[in-house]
């Protein structure tokens, strides 16, 4: 591994769900990289395949889903080639994931300390129980849980949703992973806590070189936190680039729709607004660009699949008709 090998390099990843009703191509040719200490924001509408992308990386796609092709290179090594046991050793250790629904992620019948200590000892059996407990306590303190000693002996149902999510975040931090995949981790938290967690996350990345994939609906969060942004639509990344560039000058029609932007204005701090029309069902996506039914610029060319292009430096998009003229009005 050379110094400029990215922590994570996902190449043309395809994860499909083979359901009775047909094949759902939840992730369909996704490529992106996450450098050391870098935070990548993954945004998109509900059902666009963000979570499935995360699960594909850590190798936990539920049946009937399956990674059908592509590569997931973690520090140069393709995770898809690893044996189950090797992958297990990475999970929760070098790569951690925080799930979307804080109410469901903790086991209701096990105490919080049990669920934390087992995470440490699964990867290093030599750690004593006392040491593991001490680390668990520190991790709880780190995510802002008061009286961590007491809380360790509690059961999940004694915590509020926000508290549970913080416990889940603390569990992800326990083994000081190289990569954290955070699936909308702050949605359930109130604003002050959210700010605190974001600050902690950023600090962690800067100080320890931890990389992060931050999945969210909330552009304000990505704007303040991420270095890069990937915008997903219908299982594909339609636009990616440096956060400021993309937010200031989106070139993909979908990204522009998301931002609802008027060129020249600073778009930071805006929430996603709903684009007219329905998010398509993954089961019967049209041939070609998935966005064509809702796209103001769609024409016959869009019936073919747009390949990844670099219309502006440092930007990758999938679109035949990008908005390159910065003064163009939306929908024109």
């Amino acid at each position, binding site marked *: 591994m050379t110094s400029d090998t990215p922590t994570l390099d996902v190449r043309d990843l395809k994860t499909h769900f083979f359901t009775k009703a047909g094949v759902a191509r939840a992730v369909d040719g996704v490529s992106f990289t996450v450098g050391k200490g870098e935070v990548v924001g993954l945004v998109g509408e509900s059902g666009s395949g963000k979570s499935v992308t995360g699960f594909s990386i850590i190798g936990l796609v539920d049946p009937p889903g399956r990674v059908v092709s592509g590569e997931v290179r973690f520090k140069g090594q393709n995770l898809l080639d690893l044996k189950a046991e090797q992958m297990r050793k990475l999970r929760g250790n070098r790569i951690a994931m925080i799930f979307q629904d804080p109410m469901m992620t903790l086991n209701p019948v096990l105490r919080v300390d049990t669920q934390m200590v087992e995470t440490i000892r699964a990867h290093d059996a030599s750690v004593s129980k006392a040491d593991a407990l001490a680390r668990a306590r520190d991790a709880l303190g780190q995510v802002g849980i008061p009286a961590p000693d007491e809380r360790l002996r509690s*059961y999940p149902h004694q915590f509020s949703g926000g508290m549970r999510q913080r416990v889940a975040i603390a569990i992800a931090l326990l083994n000081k992973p190289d990569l954290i995949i955070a699936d909308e981790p702050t949605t359930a938290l109130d604003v002050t806590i959210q700010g605190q967690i974001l600050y902690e996350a950023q600090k962690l990345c800067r100080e320890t070189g931890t990389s992060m994939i931050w999945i969210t609906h909330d552009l304000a969060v990505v704007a303040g936190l991420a270095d890069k942004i990937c915008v997903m639509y219908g299982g594909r990344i339609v636009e990616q680039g440096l956060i400021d560039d993309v937010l200031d000058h989106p070139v993909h029609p979908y990204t522009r729709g998301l931002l609802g932007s008027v060129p020249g204005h600073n778009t930071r701090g805006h929430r996603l607004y709903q684009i007219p029309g329905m998010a398509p069902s993954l089961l019967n996506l049209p041939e070609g660009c998935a966005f064509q039914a809702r796209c103001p610029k769609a024409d016959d060319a869009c019936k073919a699949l747009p390949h990844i292009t670099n219309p502006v430096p440092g930007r990758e998009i999938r679109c035949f008709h990008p908005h390159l003229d910065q003064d163009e009005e939306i929908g024109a």
Partner: protein
Amino acid sequence: MSVFIIRRLMQSVIVVAVMSLIVFVGVNVVGDPVDMLINPEADQAEIERVIRDLGLDRPLHEQYLYFVGNAFEGDLGKSFVFGESALKLIVQRMPATFELAFSALLMAIVIGVPFGVYAGMRPNAISSRTIMAGSILGFSLPTFWVGLMMIMVFAVMLGWLPSTGRGDTVEIFGIEVSFLTADGLSHLLMPALNLALLKISLVIRLARAGTREAMHQDYVKFARAKGLSETRVILVHVLKNIMIPVVTVLGLEFGSLIAFSVVTETVFAWPGMGKLLIDALHNLDRPIIVAYLMMIVLVFVIINLIVDIFYSVLDPRVRLKDAGQ
């Protein structure tokens, strides 16, 4: 916690009181108490003496109190056949029945849970389908006939296991038990398995359903995301969740095990209280029947109580909810 126990205790007392009333009415109103409790071979003087003793010449509500009073003193009449206190006879036979029922319960868990979890982990595998077909069959098999077939195969044809009795027993805490001697264990094996059969099927179904549900839960996925081994995910995260329904249902079924041991004890000539009851039914030894009924009601109520408490220990959500009230 203690509030919870006290409340459950009070409920139990009420149920016992109601059931004692039902048994009393059953004996005194539906059946003729003179018939029920007095040896048909007794002469007239004897009959009159017992009628006075039992207070049968007094009004019904007084009789009931009398019955309860006697029951409290452990006096539910004398067996016609043995001439001894019926309650004492029942209590003497109780350890044998409990040993059988406990062994069956243990077998149901030890055999049922692994099969059920396995079938729940891969519901579509042929092996899992075979397990489920077996459990459907287990529900339909007449227990007593299976017992006979076991005796025929393992005792008569193969000669591996003894077919009747308890074998050698040892005494611990003043109670005779079979499972501590090799001979006793060989006597216990077949009856316990026979009694367990239905419950094994039940546990397989419960464990399978629970496992299937748990496998789809986020907390299992999260446990995997933490890098836990599959063994730990199944043995701790899944198992601990499915054990709550399994233990609850099995606990409640313990009473039915004791009731069904009537059949198994008859087949294997196991000297428990079920066998005593059947013999009493044959001999019209009514005090024994009454004593058995009161005893089994008590056992049922106590079991329900224990299961409730156990349940609250296993499932933190129940415990805390109750304490908070």
